[in-house]
């Protein structure tokens, strides 16, 4: 004992920083996150990765197979597919992220109102049930037909069908939380509604919302691709992944790489976001984990 007092106690082995240890517990989602990061970075830094222009046509280089000059080959107008996939990712990601943000924010507001105000609840939830009865892609297609297509119209058309699920989620959380004793205690000491909402109710919705937003992002990127593939999506002159695939589709028998490379980029992006979402769900929201 005395020796131990004289010598300083042996320190435990230096621990890894907390976040690294946590990442090791979720190898697959970490992989998804890294893959996603690579995809995002490569689209953001597209001008540094390729010197080619995604829109410039070189008619003499039509439908070239992948090679040293054009890593992914060229399309029917002689445009470099590698550049189109990189720049197209910007558009697809922008749509995915915007839709995820917009539908979560709108869904959060509507869901809180539905969860907290009994009168509004019945009306809001009937509207949401009605929206959910219409298949999302069909609703988006119908919305697209109303006005001339632009990036923002695509975002709105994909966002609206995503809102009901968020509303349901938020409402369910608010309904559970508002009955808790600590909420009663808070209102008993005179906490006003905005403060009650901000400090005591909203924080419980964040974990499931983050998970939901991830899935929405993946599904929005896919929906954009479907809409463009069907010819009713992003304006054709903007190279989103969906448009690149839609262009390549006409020549798929001659030059399958026109569909394959943007298709793989799209699939990798959706896969990485979904895997990341599964990981976030397991880590943040064990209740959801049981359900799916």
């Amino acid at each position: 004992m005395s020796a131990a007092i004289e010598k300083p106690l042996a320190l435990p082995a230096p621990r890894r920083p907390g976040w690294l240890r946590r990442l090791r517990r979720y190898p697959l989602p970490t992989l998804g996150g890294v893959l996603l990061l690579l995809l995002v970075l490569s689209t953001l830094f597209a001008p540094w990765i390729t010197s080619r222009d995604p829109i410039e046509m070189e008619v003499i280089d039509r439908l070239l197979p992948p090679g040293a000059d054009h890593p992914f080959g060229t399309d029917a107008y002689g445009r470099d597919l590698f550049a189109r996939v990189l720049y197209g990712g910007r558009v697809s990601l922008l749509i995915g992220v915007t839709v995820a943000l917009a539908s979560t924010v709108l869904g959060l507001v509507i869901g809180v109102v539905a969860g907290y105000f009994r009168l509004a609840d019945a009306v809001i939830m009937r509207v949401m049930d009605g929206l959910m009865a219409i298949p999302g892609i069909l609703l988006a297609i119908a919305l697209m037909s109303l006005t001339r297509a632009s990036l923002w119209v695509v975002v709105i058309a994909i966002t609206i069908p995503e809102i009901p699920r968020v509303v349901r989620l938020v409402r369910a959380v608010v309904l559970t939380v508002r009955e808790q004793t600590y909420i009663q205690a808070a209102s008993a000491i005179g906490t006003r509604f905005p403060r009650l909402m901000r400090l005591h109710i909203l924080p419980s919705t964040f974990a499931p919302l983050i998970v939901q937003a991830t899935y929405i992002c993946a599904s929005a990127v896919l929906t954009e691709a479907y809409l463009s593939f069907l010819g009713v999506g992003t304006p054709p002159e903007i190279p989103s992944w969906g448009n690149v695939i839609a262009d390549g589709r006409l020549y798929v028998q001659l030059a399958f790489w026109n569909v394959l490379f943007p298709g793989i980029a799209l699939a990798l992006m959706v896969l990485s976001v979904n895997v990341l979402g599964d990981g976030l769900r397991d880590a943040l929201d064990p209740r959801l984990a049981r359900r799916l």
Partner: protein
Amino acid sequence: MGAYAIRRILATVPVMAVVAVIVFLMLHLSPGDPAAILAGDQATSDDIAAIRGRLGLDRPLLQQFMLWLGQLLSGDLGTSIYLNRPVLGLIMERVEPTLALAVSTMVFAVLLAVPMGVLAAWRAGTWVDQTIMALSVVAFSVPVFLIGQGLVVGFALTFDLLPVQGFVSLGDDVVAFARHLVLPTISLGLVYTALLARITRATMLEVLNEDFIRTARAKGLAEPRVLILHALKNASVPIVTTIGLGIALLIGGVVVTESVFAIPGIGRLTIEAVLQRDYPVIQGVILVVAGVYVLVNLGIDLTYSALDPRIRY
């Protein structure tokens, strides 16, 4: 049972009413004049005025809605502007391919997904489970048209093995009907299989932890019997409910698949209508599809509450 059934049936009325309002308002809330939207890009102001008068678009909104709703309730979904034919007839002409594809996909997915999900749950945590789950995450993320186009390219080269385009009516030629459905079913079915396999596994995992499963095993029942008769039967409610709710996803996929394989179904009808701005057709398709979705889910809920008296929502 009776009271529940009546309540459940009545609950579909507001849903369909909301769908009708949404479909009606969509045209009126959009930026721009509905008559101009309907008339198309090349219309003169006289054309627009004619359409406005013919469809009653100059009347008050509520009056228009009541008129439209009255027509709907008497089974009149309106008239196609482009083809000048009743919308309901147009939809009925295109129903068979869509229905055939949806049903074959569903059967394919259930036959594949349920055994996979059960197996994954039974061997939870092992490489079998991990492989099945990894495959299902991948299948869930690959866009339908990528699989579809891959199959088209692959089979177009191998000539007569399987047709890569079109549809043959069941009444015309049963064999050709089935052969034309194989590739579309596979490309659409994989996504749906992935979703169902995940749900099946999750539900089975919960049920397998129940006491009655331990009892069944303890009394020496063979494992297949435990898994199927005891576990799967009890897990079936959430699984079938997911199948019902997944119909919305399925219909979305059908639209894309029809486009890949040039199948003349409801999806193609919708796309054609959008490209021609044939609004009554789009409205009609949405109403019919939403109606089918609501009815199928009503049917599932009622069947289950009849089979399992514990279910009361």
